[in-house]
């Protein structure tokens, strides 16, 4: 019998001791990860194959929950709403963040203070942001409608209108998008000046320099913020829960709201778990699609 010739490198006593300490220290994190992340993740898949109410009743029903999802009216409504929110907040948020980042990339007075101000909404608690925006969007006494009234526009009842509730949530999400601004700002500041100088020598104007130098150079960063933005849009919950509860008339019922309703209000933990796994599949598909399309417009140095 031929024994494998591949040998483990022999560790010194000190290295062995260090290895033990390494595992000792990492074990706390590892136990936490298994108990609080991996465990529930695996458990939720098995729960999704049952009709568990969340407490007691539990029967194995195979993939029935997954089949039911496709016939569920509110699943499609919540999915449509989430796409609407994701498209608006990611496209709008990235565009606005790029404009602000471009401005803050210039040598303007108070640049660092402005960067901090634009970044602050992103680190502010979701509930606090939601309550503040409830006031801003208030149709009677809100800042937004007051601003519109100065230019003779009567603002709508933002959160009580089926038409305007989701655009209002998108506006708020764009305002909160400080993280994207910071990432794009870092990318912009990393574009070598010589590329602009070379483009200028070739006669490129500001738009051409932006189109053919800036955008390709920051495309990896843009790709990153689009991917994380879409994933974030599918995880939107707190502000919707606090501000609209999914209304009016399901106009802002996003995917996670519907998932949580099923799991914790409708006593359908099994179905809620199936919705969670369906969410994972949807996000994975969208991300794969983005990577496929990304090859055409993302340029790596």
């Amino acid at each position, binding site marked *: 019998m031929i024994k494998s010739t591949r040998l483990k490198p022999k560790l010194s006593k000190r290295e062995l001791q260090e290895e033990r300490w390494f595992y000792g220290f990492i074990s706390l994190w590892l136990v936490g990860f298994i108990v609080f992340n991996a465990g529930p993740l695996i458990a939720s898949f098995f729960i999704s194959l049952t009709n568990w109410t969340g*407490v*007691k*009743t539990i029967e194995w029903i195979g993939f029935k929950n997954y089949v039911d999802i496709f016939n569920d009216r509110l699943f499609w409504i919540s999915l449509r709403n989430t796409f609407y929110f994701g498209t608006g907040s990611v496209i709008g948020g990235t565009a606005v963040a790029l404009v602000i980042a471009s401005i803050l990339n210039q040598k303007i007075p108070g640049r660092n203070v402005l960067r901090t101000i634009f970044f602050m909404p992103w680190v502010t608690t979701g509930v606090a942001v939601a309550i503040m925006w409830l006031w801003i969007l208030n149709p*009677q006494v809100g800042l937004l409608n007051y601003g519109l009234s100065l230019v003779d526009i009567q603002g709508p*009842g933002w959160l009580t209108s089926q038409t305007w509730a989701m655009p209002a949530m998108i506006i708020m999400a764009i305002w909160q998008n400080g993280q994207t601004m910071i990432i794009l700002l870092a990318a912009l500041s990393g574009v070598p000046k010589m590329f602009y100088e070379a483009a200028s020598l070739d006669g490129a104007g500001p738009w051409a320099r932006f189109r053919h130098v800036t955008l390709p150079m920051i495309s990896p960063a843009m790709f990153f913020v689009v991917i994380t933005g879409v994933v974030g849009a599918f995880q939107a919950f707190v502000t919707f829960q606090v501000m609209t509860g999914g209304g009016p*008339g399901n106009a802002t019922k996003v995917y996670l709201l519907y998932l949580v309703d099923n799991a914790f*209000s409708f006593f359908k933990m099994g179905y809620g778990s199936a919705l969670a796994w369906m969410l994972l599949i949807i996000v994975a598909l969208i991300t794969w699609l983005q990577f496929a399309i990304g090859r055409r417009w993302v340029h790596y140095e």
Partner: protein
Amino acid sequence: MIKKLLGKRVSRRDFLKAAAATGGGVALSAMGIGNTAFAQDSKEVTMALTWGAEFRPTQDEFDANFMDRHPDIVIDKQYSTWPDHQTVIPTWAAAGILPDIVYTHGTRAAPWAAEEINKNIDDLATGDVEFNVDDIWDEALNLYKPQGEITAIPYDHGPIILGYNKDIFDAAGYAYPDETWTMDDLRTAAVALTDPDNNVWGWAGISNNAVRQGGHFTPWGGQGWSEDETQLSYDTPEMNEAFSFWIGMIEEGVAPNASQSEAFPTGPWQGGVVAMSPIASWDTPALAQFASFAWDVAPWPTGPVQKGTGSFGSGFGITNVENRDAAWTYMREYLSEEGMTFMWGASGRGSPARQSAYPSWIAAPIAPAGASYFLDALENYAQTDRPHKSLKGPEVEDVLISELELMRSGDKSVADALRSMQDLGQAILDG
């Protein structure tokens, strides 16, 4: 190691070792402290409650008195906010760490009984003659008997009647509502009291609760749910007439629409800008504390078909079979006539579920002058709102409320919204 640490320059490795040892020691000490506490002789009864800070001293006083009478029982309380409580309790149940006694809102009575969060206590309640379960309103107790046997004991049960802003009535020189009022009188008064120039509306509008509160449709002969809660009846001429009545007042500008209501964080009624509103007995403490206007209550007006309104309440269930005797020792005093009088009656916190304790609430300093009208409604024309038996109730109500929102905003006609309520809600019940 200590000698090493003291005697030499501390390396990173030594520091980490010391930190780990210290952390482990602290953790072990903490376990030791816990064990000492649990090693005592007295029985511990744990409770999950939802009271705000203002009501906790009353609870503490009751518990202190109870523990004086029962030195062998220690009461340990855990508080959550009302909305959190509804998800915390099932989560604790799934984890097997439920407190012995849990606050149970009427909408959770059936599901928590079905899931055996609240255990059957029929034998305890009916077998304890001194507890006198017959003293509790039938409508209140029925909420906690989803399958016919008692699974929790109500502490509060109140009907919805008519609240009115006396200042607005006085300013308009309009006579206060009384026992003779019909729904037509309500509408006439609402029109007369509306003053757009001063941002005053006659009626408060229609809240999401209208899909379940019987006062919004039983006066017209409507009934949203069948007795066994397997059939809906929203798409009927009676329901159409009832909801057209309420929505009509919004369309005419007699009641604020959803957008106008948003200007008032606590709602237009508590904001003092509407003349009349539905009001429940549990609303009265907040009004007594915060309303900046004079107010009182009157009977719910009679409809074209009958006089009728809804009622609802909350209670307490026992979750732990092993500790049920100690838990019942507490519950039987907590929810006795004296207990309800002390906790909810004399404090004015809420209308007690016991007939014998009700007078204490009517006489409470913060109760409205017309508080006896709540008692009149309970005795004569209030019925417990539905759903409260069906496990599919919350899911159906989610559909009903989203359709009501469309009705209220004018995005759907009353007839179309009721039809959707019927079709979509019944499909859930049949599914």
